């Protein structure tokens, strides 16, 4: 057990994390780009058109990954927020704040692409449906975390305040996820669940899985790079940060 905690705190050390993230990033970016490019080609060209919605159904190839990631990123922020509050780990504090930018982006794209799908299919850009409204609240939570972080001058206090806000807002995550089951919504129910056979044929499903996995890898690449920047900013007076900056200078 002691060994676990030693490793846990060792990985939480900014220089160790910085080196690990720098080494890991190419292994995330290359498969992410390949999966996204191929997934888009497959979604736009190879997958058959839907017999009712025609080509309009292809919007799900960008809408669903964005919506899944909007929930995934928020849940990961809550876990990191708890770690930041309990163990005062700098990496976790940095993650809570840095993940919020990409999370807000995924949520905004999920809402926008949902509107672009809603107009031709429902005849309206927006309805105050439980799924749409709870996803909009999720966007406001992300924006709240970003604004709170910018409003407080002390980095550590700001990160802890953001962690508390993220944890309080976690109540919205199951509401977004189960809204289509709890209420009679215009938004359709889940097409892909963990325990049942998907409601889509494989020829339509695999570009969606490719784009979802690719987007997740791309998210991790992007958030790791942002976290490296935030750690350098916080630790700029430390010897390891000076060594990193000196190495990065053109000779």
């Amino acid at each position, binding site marked *: 057990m002691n060994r676990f905690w030693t490793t846990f705190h060792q990985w939480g050390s900014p220089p160790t994390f910085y080196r690990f993230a720098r080494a890991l990033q190419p292994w995330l970016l290359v498969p992410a780009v390949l999966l996204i490019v191929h997934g888009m080609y497959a979604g736009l060209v190879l997958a058959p058109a839907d017999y009712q919605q025609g*080509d309009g159904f292809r919007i799900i190839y960008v809408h669903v990954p964005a919506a899944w990631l909007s929930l995934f990123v928020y849940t990961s922020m809550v876990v990191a927020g708890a770690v930041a509050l309990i163990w005062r780990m700098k990496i976790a504090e940095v993650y809570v704040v840095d993940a919020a930018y990409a999370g807000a982006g995924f949520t905004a794209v999920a809402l926008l692409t949902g509107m672009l799908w809603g107009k031709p299919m429902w005849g309206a850009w927006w309805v105050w449906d439980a799924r749409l409204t709870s996803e909009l609240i999720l966007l406001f939570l992300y924006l709240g975390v970003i604004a709170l972080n910018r409003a407080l001058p002390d980095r550590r206090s700001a990160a802890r305040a953001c962690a508390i806000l993220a944890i309080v807002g976690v109540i919205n995550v199951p509401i977004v996820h189960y809204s289509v089951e709890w209420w009679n919504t215009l938004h359709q129910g889940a097409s892909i669940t963990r325990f049942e056979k998907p409601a889509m044929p494989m020829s339509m499903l695999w570009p969606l899985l490719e784009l979802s996995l690719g987007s997740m890898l791309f998210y991790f690449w992007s958030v790791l790079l942002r976290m490296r920047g935030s750690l350098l900013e916080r630790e700029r007076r430390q010897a390891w940060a000076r060594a990193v900056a000196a190495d990065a200078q053109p000779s």
Partner: protein
Amino acid sequence: MMGGYARYLWPSFAVFVALLVWMAASSIGHHRRALRMVPTEPPRRTTP
């Protein structure tokens, strides 16, 4: 190919690609700004 609702399809993909480009650009920019903020000269020794 792409009949029917194609006019709603392309903006959706464009928005998604724009998000990925923005994520990459903002993370790269953030890291570069942070690198510039780190002083590269060794810390000054102060005598008591």
